[in-house]
């Protein structure tokens, strides 16, 4: 196991690379979902404003 993590001496370059790539994969999903949630709540607010105007 320790041998696997040592990666033949390349651990200090290899693991940061993988960590960064996985970080990018995760962050982009989170950002996209946040954008969608924000756009939904913003659209909802717009609808309410418009409903308020109609009354």
């Amino acid at each position: 196991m320790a041998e696997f993590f040592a990666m033949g001496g390349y651990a200090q370059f290899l693991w940061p690379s993988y960590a960064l790539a996985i970080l990018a994969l995760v962050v982009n999903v989170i950002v996209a979902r946040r954008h969608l949630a924000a756009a939904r709540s913003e659209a909802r607010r717009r609808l309410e404003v418009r409903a308020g105007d109609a009354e």
Partner: protein
Amino acid sequence: MDWTWFHKFGSPPHVYRLAGRLTPWFAWPAAITILIGLYGGLVLAPPDYQQGDGFRIIYVHAPSAWLSVMIYTTMASAAFVGLVWRMKVAHAVAASCAGIGAWFTAVSLVTGMLWGKPMWGTYWVWDPRLTAQLILLFLFFGYMALRAAIDDPSRADRASALLAVVGIVNVPIIRFSVDWWNSIHQAPSVMKLGRPTMPVDMLVPLLLMLLGFTLYFVAVLTIRLRAEVLRRERQASWLREVLD
């Protein structure tokens, strides 16, 4: 010719719903392919005869580099469609691409540097591939900066779309000039990707990672596209429908 499919495809409610339905169909295969690819790349693939285990950085570097170029091409194509046919949805696609593209360009640069340190003995070499990636990152930044600087959404859409199209025309010229420049100044190039002699147990994980990253991009794109479509939509009737 029947053009109804075109109008249907361009209609925001349809795109919103379609994108929502497609997300899981790309997200899960992406997750599974990437996990298998990671296992294959880190465990199953044998060490390289020259670079030992260091070459395994390829399994995250190459997919990120591929994705960055693929995303820029997608962005510019969508921008072109948006400019020529004035399709709102195409602009929404282009707008969704930029952020993701900038991320993966940055990842490919940093992983390239981390690969370069053990191979070249230094983090940065003015290798043509790295240099072209750096310029691509600036192109993404320029696109995002222009979009952010213009307040009117429709104007921001069209101005940034034009920039993306001008950029894609320039990309091959930039690439050529950087290769030319490099061939004169003879920087060492160790990163030989896609060697034809790559053994199968090294190649398969790489192909899986490339496929997985591509599927992942489509999945994230569908989520961001829905957000962009909602932001652009002023018509209440279908908003009420999809929000409830």
